[in-house]
Every structure is written in C-alpha cells, then in structure tokens.
C-alpha cells in the first residue's frame, strides 16, 4: 500500500529541487538588494557589488587558489580537528567529575576571555611563527564552544540511561563511547558547528600575524593596499567557504545524529 516507487523517486527529485530553492532564494534576494543599494556608490570602502563581482574571477583563480586558499584550508582543518578532539576529550572529563570542573573552570574561563589578537603574540612566544602557531591559534579559539557544549551535554545524560549502563557494568571506554558521548552528541554537534565558523574567523586572525600566504593574509593585504573591491571578494569567499563547510558538516551530522533527528521528528504530526 506504499507509495509507488516511480512517484517516490520523482518525490525525491522534487525534494532536492525544493531544498535548492530554499537554499538560494534568500541569498538571491539579499544579493539583489546589495546590488541595488551599492550600484551608485562612490565610497571607496563600499564599492558597487558589480565591481566586486567583476574582480572576483581575476582575484580567486589559479595561483591564489592553490597558494593562499589551500594552505588556509589545511591549517583550518588541522586546527579544527585538534580543537574538536581536545574539546570533546577535555569536556568529557570536566563534565563527568564535578570536582575537576570546579578545579579547572576558573582557569579555563580566564583563558577563554583573552582576545585572540593579544593571545596570538603569546602563542608566538611558544609556538614560533610558522604553521604551528596558526594552527594553535585556530585550535585555541575553536575549542571553547566544543568544550562548553560537551561539558553541558555530558552533565545532562539522562539518569535512567546512566543507571542502565551502570547496572549492566558498562564502564570505562564502553560507557564513554556508547553512552556518554552518544547521549551528549546533539549538544556536541551544536558546539562543533559553532566552532566551524569561529575556526574560519581565527584562520583570518592568525594570518594577520607573521604570515606569508593564506586567505586571511590576502584579505588583510588587500585592505592595507586599499584594494577594496578585492577585499570584498575575500569576504565573500570566506562566506562561501563557511557555507560549503557547513554543507559538509550537515552531511556528517545527518549520519551521526540520524537517530536523534528520527527521535525528535517522531512527535511531529505528519512524518
């Protein structure tokens, strides 16, 4: 009595199309607005969008893509991964033991409040000025949302689930892997998503210091060199990069949190 397969596939295409329309509609409107608002602008810092679009292909093709965007993305990947691992690991420990939390939290909160632009020089003292430093800067910023969300997620594990695990002798690594982290995963993912955009932001900040290449470096150079339309293309590219990464992130999330989406959706009127 199910839906015939032919209709189901066409439905699938329809859904994909609808998703595309959803994804593009608002950006299209915004771009149109920006285009119209900036059309006659003579302000150097606020160039017409047409000019920005015009220089975009020249700026971001070939050598720049390989020489600036790629290294940046690699550093981002390294820093983000380091932050994710450290954040989840540390968060689990801190969230599981109240005393550890009481011990660490003040220091962590202290560190968290130090602005990256003043933190970078300090990191430079220890990590030099190479890629290590940049990765450390990215990681040092990304780690917070992951850490905080992990701590809260771990603290909020359903007591009945925790007791179930305990009563069946599920302890140690198995408890961590099969119970605590899974239960906290919706919140951890919230943190990971936050961290993604923060990572991009810190990628830019880290490249404002002692860099020779990179997306952030290039944008800052454009800004200093008063190549304002080029700078705007850089900002657009950052946005695009963020969007692209979030799409990838969404795919990963859908895999890992499939159960959760199913569970939460089971209360909606029409499935």
């Amino acid at each position, binding site marked *: 009595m199910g839906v015939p397969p032919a209709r189901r596939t066409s439905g699938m295409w329809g859904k994909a199309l609808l998703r595309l329309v959803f994804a593009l509609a608002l950006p299209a409107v915004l771009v149109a607005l920006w285009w119209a608002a900036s059309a006659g602008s003579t302000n150097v810092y606020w160039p017409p969008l047409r000019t920005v679009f015009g220089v975009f292909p020249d700026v971001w093709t070939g050598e720049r893509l390989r020489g600036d965007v790629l290294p940046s993305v690699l550093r981002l990947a390294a820093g983000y991964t380091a932050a994710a691992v450290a954040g989840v690991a540390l968060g689990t420990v801190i969230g599981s033991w109240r005393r550890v939390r009481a011990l660490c939290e003040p220091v962590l909160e202290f560190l968290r409040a130090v602005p990256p632009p003043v933190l970078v020089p300090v990191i430079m003292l220890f990590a030099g000025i190479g890629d290590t430093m940049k990765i450390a800067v990215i990681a040092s910023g990304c780690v917070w949302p992951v850490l905080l969300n992990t701590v809260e997620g771990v603290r909020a594990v359903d007591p009945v689930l925790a007791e179930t695990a305990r009563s069946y*002798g599920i302890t140690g690594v198995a408890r961590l892997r099969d119970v605590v982290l899974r239960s906290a995963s919706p919140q951890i993912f919230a943190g990971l998503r936050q961290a993604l955009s923060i990572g991009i932001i810190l990628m830019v900040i880290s490249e404002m210091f002692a860099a020779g290449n990179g997306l952030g470096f290039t944008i800052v150079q454009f800004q200093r060199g008063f190549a304002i339309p080029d700078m705007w293309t850089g900002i657009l590219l950052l946005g695009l990069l963020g969007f692209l990464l979030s799409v990838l992130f969404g795919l990963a999330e859908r895999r890992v949190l499939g159960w959760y989406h199913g569970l939460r959706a089971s209360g909606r009127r029409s499935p």
Partner: protein
Amino acid sequence: MLDVQGLHKVYEGSGRRTEAVRDLTFSVAAGELVCLVGPSGCGKTTLLKCVGGLLAPTAGEVRLAGRPVDGPPPGMAFVFQEYGRSLFPWMRVGQNVELPLKQKRLSRQRRRALVADALESVGLADAAGAYPWQLSGGMQQRVAIARALAYEPEVLLMDEPFAAVDAQTRAELEDLVRRLWRERGITILFVTHDIDEAVYLGERVLVLSASPTVVREQLKVDLPDQRDQLHTRVNPRFAELRTRVYEQVQAAKRGR
C-alpha cells in the same frame, strides 16, 4: 544470598525532603524468586536501586553473597520501571540487547545467538533492526526484558516489568521468567502491582507498608513448584493467598 539490614533512605533536594524508606530488613536466599508489592510511591524502586547498588542508602546496609553492595555487582541485570528511557535511543534494538554482552567479552557469535534468542522469547524477533523509539510502549518494555535475559544474570531485579504488555503476552512472559528461574537458578527480586502476578510468580511475597516504608508482611507462597496459567490460578490456595495479599496492600494503603 541477599541481606537487607535496616535500610533507610531519605531523598533531599530542591526544597523537599522525603523519607522514602524508613527501615527495611529482609533477606532473600540464593535462587529464590521474591515478589515485592506495596502501595504506589512506597519505595519499591528505591529499595531495588539500593539493592542493585545504584543508590547509596542513607543508613543500613545491603549485602549480596556476604559482601556489602556499594556499586552494581557483576552478574546483575536490572529491568527499570522507566523502560522507555532505559533504552539507548541511538542504538537499534539488537544493539541495545547486545551492548551489555559486549561488556561481558562474549564472542560475536555467542552474542548474536543470545540476542536472537532473547528477542525471540519476548516475541520481537523481527524488531531487531528498529530504533527503540519506533516501537510501541509494550514492545519497548519487552526489549528491556530481552536485554536482561540475554545478559544471563545471576541476580535479576525487575521493576514492574510487564506493566505495559497485554494480558496474553504478560502470561507468556510470566511463564518465561519462571522457566528461566527454574532452569538457571537465578535469584529474582520482582516488583509488581498485579497481586495475582505476585502470587503466581513468587516463592515469597513481601508486602511493603506505605511510605515511610517498613516490611508489612512476608508471605510464603506454598503453591506447587510447577505452575501454569490455567491450573494454578484456579487453585483455591491461590485465591486464598491473593485475597490475603490484597487485604494487606489495602491495609497498607489505608494505614498511612
């Protein structure tokens, strides 16, 4: 096997103080099946959690096989009253049943067999691939039971395990529990609200008073060891016992 001595439990927090259990003393022999009945809120779950090492008593002591319980003892399985919340929503039914077995370091093959067996015995053989939240309440409860059975425990603590299943399934599960108990010599502590069930299943029925709780009565169930749904339930002794328990529960409830 199991010794509960002067158990006392007070819950405190969020502006409330509840003396759930005042003073419980009883013991359960190895391989015995004891049913617990008592008014709603009298502390049965509390007692079971203390016995299972999940809750620290305020005073008194629980000893299992001579050793004081201060954490869940190995070889113990627990079927929670909140069956729905005790299943891991991120695992499919099969995985839920299998997880504790992994902890026991059984071979993959053995685990498979145990899981399939347990699910089969609660009538859920074809639900192994579903997520718990895709099942009905009664099915979820049976998954929780299957998990406990597959674990092959020595001590089995069950907190109203059949509350959500239909009469027919319930009868079948009762027989299943009795069979396993006889075959494997498990020690079982069984909480139920169904007085017929308590008498039908138990070797002994413990009636608890209303909160703050003490043991109101211990009743030996002197029915033949071999029981079945048809004959045992019409046995005049069965009727006597169930009336007796019913009176006690009624008195316990009024007695507060």
